[in-house]
């Protein structure tokens, strides 16, 4: 931070482009290919782009359904998720989330919604799945968060490859099998404290890397 004003002065002297103006351009070059495809779907209802997204993400969503214990509904979940992707693609903004992260949240919400409909008794809850699980403020202009969001998926991916397998196993059970930390402990026959400490170590690692790169 201390060098900012100095750096600005220097840049302005050398060329008439401020570093702030350069930033989106730099970010543009780092755009993930799936985000580019998703925007094509959103803007032009591009079916070829949509098909490419389907070929890449549908097998992931299908496994997500199976690992969540709804193998009999796996194809149905894939359909629901992709209908939702088609309809919502006009809202996708590559500056706010990587396409894979955006698609993960849709898959998660559709999975919750599907289970909810299955368990539905005569009484219905007034709030819908998205009212509880969609992050508020998603459509707001939050420039700082946007940059953070843009890079976080890549950082997470890189840092995950450095995590020990036992930490990845625990995280996979939480995300892919919707198991609580307690259920993971029971299944692996290890104390709850051990599960929590593995998760904390992993999350610390992710955050430490984030902090390092923010400096």
């Amino acid at each position, binding site marked *: 931070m201390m060098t900012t004003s100095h750096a600005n002065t220097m840049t302005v002297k050398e060329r008439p482009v401020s570093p702030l103006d350069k930033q989106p351009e730099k970010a543009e070059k780092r755009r993930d290919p799936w985000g580019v495809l998703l925007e094509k779907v959103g803007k032009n209802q591009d079916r070829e782009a949509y098909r490419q997204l389907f070929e890449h993400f549908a097998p992931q969503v299908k496994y997500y359904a199976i690992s969540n214990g709804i193998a009999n509904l796996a194809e149905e979940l894939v359909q629901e998720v992709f209908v939702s992707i088609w309809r919502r693609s006009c809202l996708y903004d590559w500056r706010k989330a990587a396409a*894979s*992260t955006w698609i993960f949240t849709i898959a998660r919400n559709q999975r919750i919604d599907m289970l909810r409909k299955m368990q539905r008794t005569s009484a219905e809850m*007034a709030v819908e799945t998205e009212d509880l699980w969609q992050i508020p403020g998603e459509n707001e202009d939050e420039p700082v*968060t946007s940059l953070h969001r843009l890079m976080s*998926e890549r*950082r997470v991916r890189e840092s995950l490859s450095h995590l020990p397998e036992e930490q990845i196993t625990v995280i*996979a059970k939480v995300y892919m099998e*919707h198991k609580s930390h307690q259920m993971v402990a029971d299944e692996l026959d290890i104390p709850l404290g051990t599960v929590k400490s593995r998760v904390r170590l992993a999350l610390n690692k992710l955050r430490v890397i984030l902090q390092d790169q923010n400096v």
Partner: protein
Amino acid sequence: MTRHHPDSLSLMEYSAGNLSDPHALCIRLHLERCPQCRSRVDTLDSLGAVMMDHQPKVSVADTSFDQLMARIDNTPEPSPEAVARPKVDPLMKLLGQDINDLPWKRQLADVSVLDISDKFPGQNERVVLQKLVSGGKAPAHTHRGDETTIVLQGAFSDQNGVFNQWDFVVLNEEDEHRPVAVGCEDCITLSVLSAPLKLTGTFTRLLNPFLR
């Protein structure tokens, strides 16, 4: 004990979609006002995406994509308004009215409660709104099991500090406290309880939980 913000583990369970509806509501209400925690959830959502990619893939049925396109072609496009979804206040939607106008049940001079567990059909947890009048004091008590609370209006203080609107607190049997509503508004909290609270003061009759 968690104070002011949900801990990373709870945010992870939220991101993974593993929380009960009442717990998800508490986190969701906090996220609406806390950019810091929202940013942590963004990172955790990325972790979810990376985990999904890291796992095996399963081929979809050959007809899957054609079926999808047929469905898209045969269903009228929803209006842009329906897709964008207006910003909703989930609490208002759940309760149908302002929290101050609810049919509160007074339990003690300063304390009113309202059990809203029936708003979450099929859930085992007890969900309670509590109101401590401005300047009012609640009796000292501890809690059995974990109790998750979010401040919806006003503020309260106890020996651990001041808890303002949208602050998040998780307390258990080790946390005895005696909350006092501070500020000029009544303090209203929403709590999700895994077990009834235990009074530690001189009150002998059974009292509904005062959630911080």
